């Protein structure tokens, strides 16, 4: 849960502007960008995702480095990624 996962913002969701669709390792998921209202990300920006929330904007170089770190971790990262992929916060209950 403590891992920050880098994702690239694809789009801000039109009907829920506090959510963004991001690409994480080729898979698209919705995350909340409400913690970045001081400097909102747009399509093409990279963010560090923590338990479903973008915690900070990062550049592409940092995103790549973070991904290498995560891939080196192995199982813990796979578990985190699997959890992220099971997350569907954009679907109204």
């Amino acid at each position, binding site marked *: *849960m*403590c891992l920050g996962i880098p994702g690239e913002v694809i789009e801000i969701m039109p009907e829920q502007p506090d959510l963004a669709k991001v690409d994480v390792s080729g898979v698209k998921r919705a995350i909340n960008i409400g913690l*970045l209202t001081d400097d909102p990300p747009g399509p093409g920006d990279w963010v560090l995702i*923590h*338990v479903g929330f973008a*915690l900070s904007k990062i550049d592409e170089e940092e995103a790549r480095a973070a991904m290498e770190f995560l891939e080196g971790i192995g199982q813990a990262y796979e578990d985190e990624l699997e959890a992220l992929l099971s*997350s*569907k916060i954009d679907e109204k209950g």
Partner: protein
Amino acid sequence: MRFVDEYRDAEKARALSAKIAGLCEPGRQYKFMEVCGGHTHTIYKHGLEDYLPESVTLVHGPGCPVCVIPMGRVDDAIALAEQPDVIMTSFGDMMRVPGGRGSFFDSKAAGTDIRMVYSPLDALKVARQNPDKHVVFMAIGFETTAPSTAMTVLRAEAEGIENFSIFCNHVTIIPAIKAILDSPDLRLDGFIGPGHVSTVIGCRPYEFIASEHGKPLVTAGFEPLDILQSVYMLLVQLAEGRSEVENQYGRVVPWDGNQVALKAVGEVMELRPYFEWRGLGFISHSALRMREKFASFDAERHFDLPGVRVADPKACQCGEVLKGVLKPWECKVFGTACTPETPIGTCMVSSEGACAAYYNFGRFSRERVRQASRPEPVTIETGARRE
């Protein structure tokens, strides 16, 4: 060294290693603590201690949020899950944490409805989908995670959701560092500051460590080079007689943190007078609870909690490991009675726990050999039991 050799910047690592060695005063021992599970992971995974002179020791502090949850809180959470019509939710990391009466997995096997979620927002979704049940989210984590919980509560309030509450176990890093600094067990020369926690709180809260305690702190990133660079920066400060807060991870950590996140946490939560940390005991103002204004989202107000206090198992020395007094392999049950499959203590549960990181990367045997081959092994006057 094989781990770092695979790394693309092995040359840079070796160059830094030489610079680090050049800064160490002969005959002086240096001890730096990192308080972030991710750093612990990098250090063990890449064998970074092999890149440091023997006079530099890295010790691992209470940086793993799962590790510091006391057994009593796990028991309380299970008591909540046992209430009629309650669905308990939490992060996957919590599932195997042992309480006095077993873990979430044990409780689930016995028939409670405990679900793993990735985000507190997923827990809120479970509440929307189950209007006839009450959904509790067991919130854990340092300042990195607390904003997500706060934002979720604000969302629940905006949507008027009434069957959702938080069992709040968020902890704050500064009082834990204070407790370590005030402890007579350990003499430290500086700190490697946490990466993601600092993204939220920034670097200013650490200034008392430098100004009042005279210890330098360098906030660090998670790559092997980041850690080595931070050790180098700490040694430069010591060599120059400075103690300041420096930010090695400026590419991610803003000096003032994330103000939006801090505001959300401040709106929804407040400091508890005290909170029990596993292995460290009660620490004043070291954890968060829901504010009165959000009482309807507070599981502790909704339900009559047993408020269980459970002593840590006698054999377990997680407390000493969390304070950095013992290295994981110095705990007498490490790797024998306590393994990631059958953990006795929390440090063996989470992949960010020092014991699990050490165990998984098989470094304990090498470290023992290394220690044994040292002519004069470094000993700390701890008063703690050593094997």
